[in-house]
Structure formats: C-alpha cells, structure tokens
C-alpha cells in the first residue's frame, strides 16, 4: 500500500482495541471523569454507587462524546464539530480538559495512525480540539467505522471513572470490572444511538448533559489538593 492511501474500512477491527485500551498513551490516566469529586461528596462509595455514577455519565456526557466522535469518523467538518462540542460543554473547566486531552490524543495518534486530516486539525487548533473529535479522526485514520468511534467514546466515559475509583477508594478491582461488564449492553445501545444520530448531520447530534457533573467539575478544579486533573 502506498503512503497516504486510505486503509479500507473494516481492515482492522483490532485497531479499535488499541485505540480503546486504557493504556493508550493519551493522558487519560490523570483524569477521573468526575469520580474524584463524587467520591469526596460521598455519592460514590462502593460498586453499586459506582455503577449508578457510570450509568449517569454514559447516558449524558458519554452519549454526547460518542455522537461527536462518530460524526468526526464519518467525515463531518472537524472545526464545525469542535464548535458543536463547545456548545455542549457548559463547564469552562471541562472545556479546558477536553482540549488538553484532545491535544494529548493528537500527539499519540499522529505517531500511531498519521493522517493529513488530523494534521490539518492540529494546525487549526494548536492548543487542542475537543477530545471526542480527535478520537473520531483517529478511528477514521485507523480504518474504523463511525460506530467503532462511538464505542471507543462510550467505553472511555465509564472505564476512566471505574479505574479512578479503584485508586480513590481501594475498591476491589474485580468489583469495578464487574460494573463495566454489567454496563456492556447499555454501552452497545448508547454507541448505536450515537452513530445513528451522526448520520443525521451536525444538528442531529446528541446534547445530553449532567448538570451535577458540570458543577462538581468547577468545584473540583478549585481544590488545592487532588489526585486527578478532573
């Protein structure tokens, strides 16, 4: 295959495993997805409350991120999507975090699946585009589908908090992983819904929001002592 030639879609499903792996070096390990603030507030205390937290995040922030990622993977204009992501992210702290993570993901993907589209986005947004849009372009560059991109986004929306709570509470890692396994059918449904919505274009993208996550993100950002960046 010549350099720059697109990899045919579905060429490598295993690429999705690489992209969705929590060890993919794109900065996610420093973020708890709101779990640290929820633990401090006493709302996440055990496996049951972790599951409730993850379910809430999946159907709000997770769905929104998955729609953006699927749309980017489908080839919608990344800069228009970046504005759409801003409009869907009321918390300034979370906007800043999404761009920082987008920049870190850009660095990793330019080394793993280089693509002219991602280079163009990096040039237009040198301080980082919203992470789900970069995730969608990464999936696209890796020959994955919009639905695959949505899967990566929804899995990340729950795996990040679950991992963080293992560190924050000393929660049994088997229990935390059990939470993720129980949520799997819902991950399927939310990813499919996001990919469907992306077929309807920019204005049809989900705009789910969790006001408590937004408010607590602002509070958390002002803590002088914390383990996670968000």
């Amino acid at each position: 295959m010549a350099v720059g030639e697109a990899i045919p879609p579905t060429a490598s499903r295993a690429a999705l495993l690489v992209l969705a792996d929590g060890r993919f070096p794109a900065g996610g390990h420093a973020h708890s997805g709101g779990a640290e603030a929820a633990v401090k507030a006493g709302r996440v205390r055990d496996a049951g409350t972790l599951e409730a937290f993850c379910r809430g995040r999946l159907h709000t922030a997770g769905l929104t991120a998955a729609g953006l990622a699927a749309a980017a993977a489908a080839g919608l204009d990344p800069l228009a999507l970046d504005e759409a992501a801003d409009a869907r992210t009321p918390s300034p702290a979370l906007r800043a975090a999404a761009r920082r993570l987008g920049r870190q993901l850009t660095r990793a993907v330019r080394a793993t699946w280089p693509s002219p589209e991602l280079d163009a986005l990096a040039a237009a947004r040198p301080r980082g585009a919203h992470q789900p849009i970069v995730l969608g372009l990464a999936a696209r560059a890796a020959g994955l589908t919009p639905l695959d991109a949505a899967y990566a986004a929804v899995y990340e929306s729950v795996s990040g908090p679950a991992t963080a709570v293992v560190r924050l509470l000393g929660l049994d890692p088997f229990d935390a992983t059990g939470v993720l396994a129980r949520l799997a059918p819902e991950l399927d449904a939310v990813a499919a819904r996001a990919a469907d919505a992306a077929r309807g274009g920019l204005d049809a993208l989900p705009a789910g929001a969790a006001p408590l996550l937004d408010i607590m993100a602002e509070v958390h950002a002002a803590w002088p002592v914390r383990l996670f960046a968000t």
Partner: protein
Amino acid sequence: MHLDHPDAYPHRHTYSAAHPLRGDGSRRALRIGLGGPVGSGKTATVAALCRELRDRVSIAVVTNDIYTREDAEFLLRNAVLPPERITAVETGACPHTAIRDDISANLEAVEDLEEAVGPLDLILVESGGDNLTATFSKGLVDAQIFVIDVAGGDDIPRKGGPGVTTADLLVVNKTDLAPYVGADLEGMARDAKAQRGDLPVAFTSLAAEGGVGPVADWVRAQLAAWTAGPR
C-alpha cells in the same frame, strides 16, 4: 534513517519526542529527569541546580507532584527561577505513569515552556516521589538522575532496582546525616559500584555550601556533550 516519503507528513518528526533538533534545525533543550523516593531531596537538588547554573544556562523546570502543587510552589517560593519557567503536571495518582508509560502531558509541558520563554538550554523534569522502580521514558528525557539519601537506608544501593542500576547519575544525598543514622557510606559506594559498573555516583550534602557541586559538574558535562552533538 528517514524511510517515510519525505513530504507525506511533514510535521511528523517534530512529534518524535527523542528528536534532538527543533523545527528550524537548531538543537532543542537538553532534558534531564530527576527521580527517586519521597523525601530524598529531588526538589532541593533541582533548586540548588537552578541557583548554581541559572546565570550561564537558560533553564526551565517541570514538576510531577502526586497530589498537590507543593514542589512547584517550593521552587516558586524560593524564587530559584521566574514563575514562567516552572510548570506542574498533574499525574492522576500515578507519577511513574506520567514519566514513563504515558508521557504526553510532560511532553506538552516541555514544549509549552520552550514556546513561552524562548529557546532554552536545559529542562529539568522532576518526578513525584515514587518507588525504586520508577524510571523516565527515553521519549521524554535525554538523561536521568536518581536521587536517594543515606537516611532512607544504606542498603538501597545493594537492593538495586531500575532507578539505582540504570540511572545516568546516582545521587546519594544527605551524607551529613550518615553518622546519625548509622549509614555506611563506603559500603554504599561499594554496592553502587557493583550494581552500576562504570556509571557515576555522586555523594552530596545539600545542607553544605556548594553541596550540589558534583551534580552541577555532571550536568555541565552533559550540556557540553549535548551542544556538541550532530545537527
């Protein structure tokens, strides 16, 4: 070796962390990592190095605190460098991940410093206090210093581990405390030699005037070798 088509992705090499040249062909700042256990004197070593070298060398510092900004604030409070030359990276309860397994936040901090304060000669990347297995990725730093101290136990060099064994410089700090904690400095030197072969070891007492001297001399030698490297 450049096996890629020369025009396919022109920015690609600027994203290779280990590449020694800037976009304009000049040599980028030398990056030196400092790791080691909690309380061994990493931040004190960074502060002393800045004071010793800052008149001749353009320096910046990245700190990787575990859960606070204390290390960065210590450096700021002691005014070893202007604030725009010090950046803190948040590490999500895993400082060794941020310096070894996922270096993206540290690379960004390094690049932002160079962009904000102009061409630098030296960037010191300080790890959060961590265990004896913590080492820096070669994608992040060009050389690394591992700092231990005599009060942490004089058996640390004998026990080895990646930091003690492979660091480009091993610093054994707080030698002034050796009589009080019953540490055998000669034994530590012998054990370190056995673990490290020809790799250098510096015994320091930062409490003394000029105590960072041996480390500063090593850094100067690294800088000279870096500057003389191929373009």
